[in-house]
């Protein structure tokens, strides 16, 4: 009987731990599951505004947005962080965000300010590029591929791992880069890649850790579609410490695609003023300085300073592929379907 009482207590405490009354107001922020932030940074915002910030995660960027759209009548949160430029138009069209133009936007380059309606505010960006295993290319005395076209050449047969654009945002980014570069001919290019033994995985985790030879997973492919910041992460998360990154990104013009992440105040927010303050906070130097080492993305705020490892090992491509959010939004599904069909 004592046992039962004990179990009961555990359940009850477990249940109430979640719904314990919060003394200050509560701000609910919905994010994708890759969201990360330093504790101190959030605590500063909480004390400054006498608010308790709680986070809920809704899966990856696409899943999170879809959940927000589906529940627009009874919103799950006050702020949504993590809509990227491939979903921007869809998010704006869905009409689930309040308009808000943050004063902090003054410090943000206009190339990131893609939403003229000011429903969504740019927060960070990152480039999806092909990463390569330095030692593989050194050992095999193989030249690096210098364009998308060169990847279809026989010396790179079976060497490239990519993510499925239907299931992975990284994969989608790379598909968009090829679409921007080849136009209507992008499917022919993919058929050639397929002929040349491209390996398609469901997501970044598998491609990077299972297939990529440059990662700790020691896979079989020395080329992988990843982020331009991944080499920096390899140095930062190394044991023993590395003096040089084992991998690097190919930055040739048109081979990379830039993902820009946005945040917005959800319609029906319980405390819109606080939610707007949170958008300001996301653009503030404090949060923007914290971004690189937490999520391995670049701050959009020009006043933010980059950590040393980032400056040293992470590079920014000069000419990423270009596609407007409206173009992407209008064609995304059709391009993916056609890609799926071509790769069957």
């Amino acid at each position, binding site marked *: 009987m004592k046992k039962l009482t004990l179990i009961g207590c555990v359940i009850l405490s*477990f249940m109430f731990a979640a719904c314990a009354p919060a003394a200050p107001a509560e701000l609910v922020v919905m994010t994708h599951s890759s969201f990360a932030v330093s504790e101190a940074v959030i605590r500063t915002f909480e004390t400054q505004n006498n608010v308790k910030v*709680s986070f809920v995660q809704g899966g990856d960027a696409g899943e999170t947005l879809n959940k927000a759209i589906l529940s627009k009548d009874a919103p*799950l949160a006050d702020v949504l962080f993590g809509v990227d430029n491939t979903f921007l138009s869809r998010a704006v069209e869905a009409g689930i965000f309040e308009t808000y133009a943050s004063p902090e936007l003054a410090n943000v380059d206009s190339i990131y300010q893609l939403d003229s309606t000011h429903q969504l505010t740019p927060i960070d960006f990152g480039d999806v590029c092909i990463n390569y295993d330095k*030692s593989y290319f050194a050992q095999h005395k193989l030249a690096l591929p210098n364009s998308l076209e060169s990847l279809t050449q026989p010396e790179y047969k079976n060497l490239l791992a990519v993510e499925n654009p239907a299931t992975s945002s990284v994969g989608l980014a790379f598909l968009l880069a090829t679409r921007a570069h080849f136009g209507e001919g992008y499917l022919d290019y993919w058929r050639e890649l397929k002929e040349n033994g491209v390996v398609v995985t469901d997501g970044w985790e598998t491609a990077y850790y299972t297939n990529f030879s440059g*990662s700790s997973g020691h896979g079989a492919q020395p080329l992988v579609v990843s982020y331009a910041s991944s080499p920096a992460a390899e140095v930062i998360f*190394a044991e023993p410490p590395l003096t040089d990154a084992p991998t690097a990104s190919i930055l040739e013009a048109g081979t990379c695609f830039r993902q820009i992440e946005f945040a917005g105040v959800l319609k029906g927010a319980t405390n819109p003023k606080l939610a707007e303050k949170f958008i300001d906070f996301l653009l503030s130097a404090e949060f923007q300085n914290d971004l690189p080492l937490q999520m391995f993305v670049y701050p959009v705020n020009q006043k933010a300073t980059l950590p040393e490892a980032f400056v040293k090992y992470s590079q920014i491509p000069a000419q990423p592929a270009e596609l407007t959010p409206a173009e992407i939004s209008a064609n995304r599904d059709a391009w993916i379907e056609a890609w799926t069909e071509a790769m069957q």
Partner: protein
Amino acid sequence: MNLDKRIAQEGQAYGGPARWPISRFILWALPSAFLLAFFFYPLVKIFALTFEAQALTAQENLQIVWRVTRFTFYQAALSTLLTLALGLPAAFLFARFNFWGKSFLRALTAIPFMLPTVVVAAAFNSILQLPVFSALRQPAPLTLILLAHVFYNATIVIRILGAALAQLDPKLEQVSRSLGANGAQVWHEILLPLLKPALLSAVLLIFILDFTSFGVILLLGGGKVSTLEVEIYLRVLKLPNLPLAALLAILQLVFTLIFSILYAQALRRSSHPTAPRFSIARPPQTLREKIFVGVFSILLLSFFSLPLISLPFRSVLRLEADRGDRAQVQIGLTTEYYQELFINRRNALFYVPPIQAAINSIVIASLTVLFSLALGIPTAWALAKPTNLEKILDPLIMLPLGSSAVMLGLGLILTYGRALASPIFIPIAHTLIALPFVIRALQPAIASIPERLRQSASVLGASPWRVWRLIDFPILRRAALTAATFAFTISLGEFGATLLLSRPELPTIPVAIARFLSQAGGLNYGQAMAMSTILMALTLAGILLLEKDHHA
């Protein structure tokens, strides 16, 4: 004789249907409330919102439906057959023989069932990269999918069939041998017909699990193949076409329902009373037995441990130095990854020490056991001696297994909104998945309790509660332990938090593993392996503990 029969019938009339209104109502109250609130209502709500009749007539929809359904059946049937091919002899091995390391090997076969798919895929891959397997370096996605399904589900055959084999009277086998039946004939004429109910249970569970398989298809299929469950996920969240998704989800539910009905009918036709027995396992004696035990246990050991062993191996192996531009290859052992688990290097808000993730996992798994037993025991009780209405309800129990996790997740979001972020929804979601397993594990055991025992106990003056405690419970204990093991392990390995709204500050071990794997870097990979090793060790310890209790 006639008089006896009449008395028996009247006794049944008094003990059975006459009592149904109150006792049956009590039995059903909790489980049906639970299923209505967390399963049927949310599903109806999401279907009402998304389903459109036009989806049925669109040509391109029907093509997708046909392609996906065909592949779903194909891979599920193949996977089930292969799982049986490995699981049947394995169940026989464990039920009939005692050998060194048996309980460890048995526990080992159960580990995959609760490891997150990402980890299993990584493990499989690391094995395929060994020089021995270099010829198989790029196996077809289907091969990998089938292998993974066998790897995951063999434990179901071993457990369900093993329990049935242990209850089988060894004399039947001996008699048939002495009547001139050879080994194959004994199986064909005696064992298989008698094991049919258990075999059907196992086949149905495995088939439904393979039929609704998600992670394995997504991860190992490389986007080239998709099952109903995967296609629904894609059509809801990636290439939104909600009417098509709803159509596929309804289809999947209907198929699950059909399998369950077929199963229930087959079960009713082939049920034979068996009596619970003491273990009949013994050391192998003849040369043939010794060869079987030796060869098969080594086969099982390598099939299950080779992929798994690479996790603890990699969690202490430092491979950093052989990467980069340096030619010098240095491999070293390190405990750094484990130490690092306890360090919040980046002062991250959602950092959780591994011990806390383990506690979260265990608390959630324990709650899942508690919930699913509390709901499963009365349901299994009612279904073990069913009235006509309950015979119709029986197949519905399996539906949660056949419902698309994504659709159900959306339905729950629509129904519960912000409240869904409450941590209590995690064990509730796990319970929904575990409940069919728990009920199916309990049902045959309850049905096998001889009514005579119960009657003699109540004649001896035991109150209904004491009858339950003194007669039913001890007999049920074994089945309840099996059910609890299922619930616990399903919960430990379940990584479906994303189908709801997850609270990042309350990660379970699989969530923590996924977090490490979502960023590049050797430390992240090493920590994911270390965390996986911890999960494996936890699981192994849990199973060994439960099994030890079994034998006590």
